[in-house]
């Protein structure tokens, strides 16, 4: 019973992934693409949580943390790069 529900929700999540992929390819501005990448990371994270429930292992929880951190750092760095043309600010005084 639970396995069927988990597989159905995996199918729904992968459909959502395809929707984000459309916005990632088509998106008119660069910020659309950053937003789609952020959403893809979050959906991947929930897919891994569902997979770990399906296989009944605790081995994938590290990957959940890792993908969360990498998604946040990636989208923050890209947004800063688009806003200022620079990821890490250097001091400009002499």
């Amino acid at each position, binding site marked *: 019973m639970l396995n069927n529900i988990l597989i159905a929700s995996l199918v729904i999540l992968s459909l959502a992934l395809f929707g984000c992929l459309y916005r990632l390819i088509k998106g008119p501005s660069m*910020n659309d693409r950053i937003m789609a990448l952020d959403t893809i990371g979050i959906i991947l994270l929930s897919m891994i949580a569902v997979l770990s429930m399906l296989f009944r292992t605790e081995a994938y929880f590290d990957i959940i943390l890792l993908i969360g951190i990498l998604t946040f750092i990636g989208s923050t760095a890209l947004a800063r790069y688009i806003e200022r043309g620079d990821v890490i600010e250097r001091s400009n005084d002499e």
Partner: protein
Amino acid sequence: MNEVTMSEIGELIIGLFVLFGALLSAISAFGLIRLPDVYLRSHAATKSSTLGVLIILLSAFLYFMFYVDHVSAKLLLGIIFVFITAPVAGHLNGRAAYRSGVPLWEKSTLDDLGPALKKAQKNSKRQDMN
């Protein structure tokens, strides 16, 4: 033989929670496709997908607590981290979009940030003169 045990009801409730979170993620992807503007799309990309992933992670935490007897601090840490950082990333992205000049939707009627930003720039220029 036919009686429904307590653990089956719990499994059903957890499965419904997971299904609800997946549907919220699907709604967020739908909004990401259909909405007309970066600033409108950021609503769909930030709020509902965050709620969906929070519900799925919480139900995974409950499942592993009740059925595998494993209380995982990593999963709680992931929940807190996603809950804090996903709105921050959305805010930074919207700010970068406005400052780099991505146009608004042509039917949107109110733009409060434009005059405020101009005034702030004028003030900073005056301070530089002094």
